């Protein structure tokens, strides 16, 4: 079915006001040279079943969740804390069995009736003391859930008081779920707090000649371990990771790196921006999803440092790794070539994973983000034109200035100019790499998803667990790209090979042939399922 027609059919089902709104979030792409604006990062309409989570989920679960030595204390009723208890499959590897690791703990003030009526600050303070007494952690983060703001508890004041009393770093987040339109607002809030309360606390950098920070990599399924392996092999030192397999110390020394590379632009670009202003660390976008993309990203980093030794080393590593990758592609691609994927996930994955599918000869027919902004679709150049609505205004915009003591330009103006090709502070977004005629849908609703599957029958649909069983009931395999379906890593070179194997397995399984029972009549030929 022609995508324009698909769009019209789907919109018909909505009440007219809703259709008007959804209209702007569904777009038939006109090609990289004719990128049109798309509506993104606006509130989901009530009653529409969305993939999105809440601000708190983005703040606690995504950004701070993967850091092992901070105690995350959730201030609110129990559910919010329970549901965010180790559900994201991010991994961590403490150096010794005795090293602090609080990731498997879900601490909550478990607010009760009386706390809602009389306020929960006293309970919160007590909970801080308990966390301290139990673990003597380096830091405690306090996360507010919906009722907190409403009943007027001041988590920041409590944090300050407890910091004083207990003598460790304690900070709060006003990340009440309703504040933003999705997880995205929570990312921003978390970024702000890291800049305000953590980054810059210690000047002891990691050892090494080429020190970088990896931003927006969350070690789902062990991705960070694979990237650590590659960087290590190239002789590049990882000074800090935001935040896969990370520690508080890594955040504290982040300002000592020579370069920030950004994986997931959506969730962490604020930290990259602020660190540049405050400490003079340049940043650029990389992508380690896909073997070619990984090679390209490594070259970018080597070019930045400009050192011939490093460049040589990086080329050696790439050659070695790609040889293995190629073998795998040669074997698998004949079985996957020409198949079709759809990706609706996250704020960068729906873009990044297209690389991997391309490598398998698979095309992406439709894609969209769950919580991306316009810049994630259209590229950062549209940022000045993005309208700020009430929901975005809710989230604090930190203004940072060059730190009088710690600001240090890493490159001169001329050097940066010469390196322009690295595209500092740039990101072209998803649309620049998608084919003309593809369907771009922001904040895909459950209903729209059903219609996509029904009409287009992709060979694989990528989303999360909430969509999984629904799509599979329709006879289409779903690959979870939040949790990787218990697989992974998928980043880097070994990750790419893992992904090829998993996709091969998925799109070439024989299960679907069994759907029809032998006693059933021949199915009616279904019309109009052309790609």
């Amino acid at each position: 079915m022609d995508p324009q027609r698909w769009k019209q059919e789907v919109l018909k089902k909505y009440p007219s006001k809703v259709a008007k709104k959804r209209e702007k979030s569904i777009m038939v792409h006109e090609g990289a040279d004719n990128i049109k604006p798309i509506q993104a990062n606006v509130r989901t309409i009530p009653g529409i079943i969305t993939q999105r989570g809440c601000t708190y989920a983005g703040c606690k679960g995504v950004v701070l969740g993967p850091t092992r030595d901070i105690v995350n204390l959730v201030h609110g009723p129990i559910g919010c804390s329970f549901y965010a208890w180790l559900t994201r499959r991010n991994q961590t590897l403490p150096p010794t069995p005795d090293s602090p690791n609080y990731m498997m703990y879900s601490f909550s003030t478990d607010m009760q009736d009386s706390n809602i009526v009389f306020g929960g600050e006293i309970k919160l303070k007590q909970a801080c003391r308990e966390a301290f007494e139990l673990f003597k952690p380096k830091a405690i983060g306090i996360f507010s859930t919906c009722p907190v703001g409403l009943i007027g508890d001041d988590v920041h004041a409590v944090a300050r008081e407890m910091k004083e009393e207990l003598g460790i770093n304690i900070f709060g987040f006003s990340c009440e779920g309703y504040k933003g339109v999705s997880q995205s607002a929570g990312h921003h809030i978390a970024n702000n707090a890291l800049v305000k309360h953590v980054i810059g606390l210690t000047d002891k950098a990691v050892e090494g000649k080429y020190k970088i920070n990896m931003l927006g990599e969350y070690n789902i399924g062990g991705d960070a371990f694979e990237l650590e392996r590659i960087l290590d092999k190239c002789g590049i030192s990882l000074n800090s990771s935001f935040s896969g397999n990370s520690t508080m110390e890594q955040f504290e020394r982040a300002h000592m790196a020579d370069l920030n590379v950004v994986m997931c632009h959506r969730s962490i670009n604020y930290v990259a921006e602020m660190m540049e202003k405050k400490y003079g660390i340049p940043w650029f976008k990389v992508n380690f999803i896909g073997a070619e993309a990984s090679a390209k990203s490594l070259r970018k980093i080597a070019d930045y440092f400009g050192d011939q030794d490093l460049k040589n080393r990086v080329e050696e590593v790439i050659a070695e790794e790609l040889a293995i990758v190629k073998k795998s592609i040669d074997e698998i691609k004949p079985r996957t070539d020409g198949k079709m994927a759809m990706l609706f996930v996250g704020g960068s994955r729906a873009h990044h994973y297209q690389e991997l599918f391309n490598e398998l000869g698979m095309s992406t027919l439709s894609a969209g983000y769950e919580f991306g902004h316009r810049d994630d679709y259209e590229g950062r150049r549209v940022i000045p034109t993005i309208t700020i609505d009430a929901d975005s205004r809710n989230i604090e915009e930190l203004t940072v200035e060059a730190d009088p003591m710690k600001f240090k330009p890493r490159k001169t103006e001329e050097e940066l100019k010469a390196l322009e090709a690295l595209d500092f502070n740039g990101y072209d977004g998803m649309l620049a790499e998608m084919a003309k005629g593809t369907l771009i849908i922001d904040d895909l609703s459950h209903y729209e998803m059903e219609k996509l599957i029904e009409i287009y029958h992709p060979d694989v649909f990528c989303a999360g667990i909430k969509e999984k069983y629904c799509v599979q009931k329709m006879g289409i395999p779903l690959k979870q790209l939040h949790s990787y379906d218990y697989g992974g890593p998928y980043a880097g070179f070994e990750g790419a090979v893992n992904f090829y194997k998993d996709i091969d397995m998925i799109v070439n399984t024989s299960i679907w042939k069994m759907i029809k029972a032998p006693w059933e009549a021949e199915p009616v030929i279904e019309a109009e399922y052309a790609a």
Partner: protein
Amino acid sequence: MEAVKSPKKTFVSTRNACKLCAPLGASVVFKGIKGCLPMIHGSQGCATYIRRYMISHFKEPVDIASSNFSEETTIFGGNRNFNTGIENIIQQYNPEVIGIASACLSETIGEDIPRLIREYRTVNASKALPVFVNASTPSYQGTHMDGFHEAVSSVVANLAECGETGTHINIFPGFVSPADLRHLKDILTDFGLDYVLFPDYSDSLDNPHWKEYQIIPEGGTAVSEIKRTGTAKASLEFGYILNLGGINSRITESKAAFTAAQWLEKNRSVIRCKLGMPIGINETDRFFKQLEELSGKPTPNRYERQRGRLVDAYVDGHKYVFGKRAIVYGDEDMVVGLVAFLTEIGIEPVLVASGGESGILKREIERITEGKYPQMKVVSGMDFESINEMTEELKPDIFIGNSKGYYISRRLGIPLVRVGFPVHDRFGAQRLQHLGYEGTQQLFDRITNALIEYKQEHSPVGYKYI
């Protein structure tokens, strides 16, 4: 890394909760109504998390809408969001029923959902509207089980009609697995009873593969059936605790401090038969006896044989299980049922724990065990860290409960037999059986085999025969 041990201390914080939040329970109930789409009136995150959690257990599509509060809504009230939400649901899904659960946020600002429903009905009086049901489920007043029972009572109180008493019976099984529900239906059918089972998510949360996509999964108790609960001759209700704790615990306000069967007894004169969860032989015997009385028929041979086989298994398995020490945790009525069963097979429940706080768990456990285990600890309002800290002293051989206790059993290197909800680290949670002779047989086999496996793995010889 281990927490610094301080078993004596009591905490105000909840560390690794052994309970979920109230709208989840209500959503499960709404999924057990035919043609129902649940909506959570509050922020979008709650609906997303709750869907996510139910899906990871049932491995089925679970659609739950949200009225998606924004900052503005928290100030001006949720009425516009409510109306838009309902309108959208009707337009896209055209459900027969919309089940609305409140959440912490909407309750905090004092939203009155019955009023919102009334107003919506009035404004749209000319249209054919779905049936609306609702449950008041603030999570700061109780757990997912309180939400579950609140929804059951509230739906029944809303729909049960008056009329002449029929020959049918009601059965309110509580929060059990889809396979349990299917088994119950078989039993009732075999007794030749006309029954209303509510909630019935045996299909809607465990559907076969579909030929054609169903926008609202099939299965569930039809509204017309729920209406019939009012004219039944009796109600069977599993669980001694249910939401009765409301009377002597802190859960008081705005809640249905009655169970569905209580309400029907009081308002529709339907006889209420109180039963425990039929786990183990004693409790199942009571259930079957009740069915014999209600149907006027003897227990069908099939179940007699199931019972016989179960007794046979108890005898043969005795040597593996007797004297073992178990930590049992989960929903209050589920643990009462499990303890009743463990007592029969000679496993000593050294700790019985629940995140629920009805205030009557201890009393019920003591009643069921008849003081057999003076050392046994029964603790309400428990979290997993408190359980963790008690293990040193309790020296358990086995854990019986949901997936969340896995990290402790792993640390101790002892088996965990997964029951109840949530079970998201094993496949087939929707098909786990707990109830009846058949379900008990499954449980008994699983527990026995877990203990045998432990013994085998820890034996230096590696026996092949046991």
